């Protein structure tokens, strides 16, 4: 998956319109990224990418770029 597709997927997880989510977007800028949104993200990473997050991973996710880093570390993101 490339970065564009990853951002589209993240937008879908948080039910944001495509294009609203960028690499720099912070958690507090996304309405749907509350505690329940985090659960949706965790479930999505598990079901779509078979990525299981540690507590440290979860606590560390404060920006969209953090999610992309997780995808990259797990070999799911092709760098441009």
């Amino acid at each position: 998956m490339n970065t564009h597709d990853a951002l589209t997927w993240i937008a879908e997880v948080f039910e944001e319109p495509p294009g609203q989510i960028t690499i720099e977007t912070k958690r507090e800028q996304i309405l749907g990224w509350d505690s329940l949104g985090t659960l949706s993200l965790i479930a999505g990473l598990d079901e779509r990418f078979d990525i299981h997050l540690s507590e440290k991973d979860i606590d560390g996710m404060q920006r969209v770029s953090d999610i992309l880093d997780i995808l990259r570390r797990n070999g799911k993101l092709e760098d441009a």
Partner: protein
Amino acid sequence: MGDSRSFLDFSGQWVVVTGASSGLGRAIAVELARHGARVVLVGRNEGRLSETASQLGNADHRVLVLDLARHDAIAAEVIRLRQDVGPLYGMCHAAGIVETRPLATNTIGVVQAQLNVNLLAGLELARTVCRRDVMMSDGGSLLFVSSVYGRVGMPGQTGYCATKGAIASAVRAMAIELARRRIRVNCISPGLVLTEMTKQSLGVLSPEHVEKLKAAHPLGIGEPEDVARAAVFLLAPGTRWITGADLAVDGGFTAQ
């Protein structure tokens, strides 16, 4: 609402109504339209949905022919609907099936068929309607039609009772989860209302049993409109502090 509009005024907001081809769903759709809602009529039978549509007066509406047992089709249809009409205000899941069976013949398949429509389709519809990119950003209202048989038992209705009880429980969970987004979730539990569905299930009972059931309702048998008015009350934008409720609309049946 600090203006002169009735608290039951839907002001043109869109409400999806399942089971709209007959019975309670039809009555609810018609009553919603009377109070200014634009309605999406969902059902399996296009002809009967059109009959419902003809009773809406000049109210804007859409007809969505959809088999709710096909859960995988629900999300796509709701998203398509949103693209057509704009943000949705809410939904009423009035679709339901009942199969009267003694426990001995109440196989998994029989129960599953009722679960698929009565509960699971409603949850899938709620899941999609409540998406941030589907629902209005300032909140909305969901209503599920449960039944008095979600609270009390009835011979031959194990599957039906299970699905209707599950609806009431799911409603409470959704109400708490969605309150942060000002989305209210409620259910109504109708008693005996003469609709095609209830006539069918009463048809397998003895006449004596049917008369006992009728007599068990202190205010007599209900009409679809009795339930529809309660549904509109709970769905209405003005009843903004009611959520997680299960309103018995049963002529006093469960008060005994």
